[in-house]
């Protein structure tokens, strides 16, 4: 928590090297193992444990296996309904994007700050609250659309910019608009995820600052300001959990829609 009565909500997003890897470099670039990288690895580990624990192939699934089958079946169903039969080829890609974003979002909300007496400065780090990570994920999705589209349709892929039934006297307007909306896709994908996570974490930090500061300035202010804010924080935390899931879902859903454009044109 910031000193001097001032809340610093941006401090939690600082990327810092860990374990003395500050000066590692490769070809002139610093490749220090940062807390961002650590939380990405943790997300992968959590996902790995979750998947290994549930991939059992029992005829009557137990609870864990049912959870894993629910997740894979959900992505499979999403691609089947949005892309069609050929969408199944993209299940691994979309499942990876969805589950990684979901895990990274959820791990960023872990309340491990309560262990701070044991390890000073300990705080969860939402790796998806950085444009670098979400930008790369969005480029992955956008790049796949381009590769699939050009591989399947060749230059006919450009007919994506001329929707069916466009009247000839609108030909000067519709293709540029469609092209613009196509090129904006990676930015909107990356920006949506990054801003939604950042905004949620800033909000929680500011509210937590209210609670701590009003609590430390006496019983009166603690009751008037701190207690209602704390109750609000519980609600907002639940909302943030919902936002984590919705943002991962929206990212996967939009990726599958864009893949549908690439596979089937429109």
């Amino acid at each position, binding site marked *: 928590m910031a000193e001097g009565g001032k809340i610093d909500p941006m401090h939690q997003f600082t990327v810092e090297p860990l374990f003395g890897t500050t000066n590692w470099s490769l070809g002139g670039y610093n490749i220090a193992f940062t807390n961002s990288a650590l939380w990405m690895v943790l997300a992968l580990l959590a996902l790995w444990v979750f998947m290994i624990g549930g991939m059992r192939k029992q005829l009557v699934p137990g609870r864990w296996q049912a959870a894993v089958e629910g997740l894979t079946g959900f992505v499979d169903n999403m691609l089947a309904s949005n892309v069609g039969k050929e969408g199944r080829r993209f299940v691994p890609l979309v499942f990876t994007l969805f589950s990684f974003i979901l895990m990274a979002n959820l791990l960023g909300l872990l309340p491990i700050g309560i262990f701070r007496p044991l390890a000073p400065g300990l705080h969860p780090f939402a790796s998806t609250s950085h444009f670098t990570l979400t930008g790369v994920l969005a480029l992955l999705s956008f790049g796949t659309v381009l590769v699939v589209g050009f591989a399947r349709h060749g230059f006919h892929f450009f007919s994506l910019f001329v929707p069916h039934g466009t009247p000839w006297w609108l030909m000067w307007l519709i293709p540029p608009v469609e092209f613009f909306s196509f090129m904006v896709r990676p930015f909107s994908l990356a920006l949506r995820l990054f*801003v939604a996570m950042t905004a949620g974490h800033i909000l929680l930090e500011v509210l937590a600052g209210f609670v701590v500061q009003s609590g430390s300035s006496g019983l009166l202010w603690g009751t008037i300001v701190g207690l209602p804010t704390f109750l609000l924080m519980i609600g907002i935390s639940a909302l943030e959990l919902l936002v984590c899931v*919705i943002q991962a879902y929206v990212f996967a*859903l939009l990726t599958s829609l864009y893949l549908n454009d690439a596979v089937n044109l429109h």
Partner: protein
Amino acid sequence: MDAEAAKLLGAGLAAIGAGLAALGVGNVFAKFLEGALRNPSAADSQQGRLFIGFAAAELLGLLSFVIAVLLIFVA
């Protein structure tokens, strides 16, 4: 006007955009529920479209939030 004051005022004005996007998101879900209650059997198949509409409405609010953050912390 002081440049710093103008920045903060601009950031505050950007909050209007975020609030209006909240109206938009609420509208998306309200209309979906309205339609879903009229024809519940068709509701499940339209959930994807619900979230597309939600994502589009939400993005504009998030953009105004970005403007506010840029004004306060970057500009």
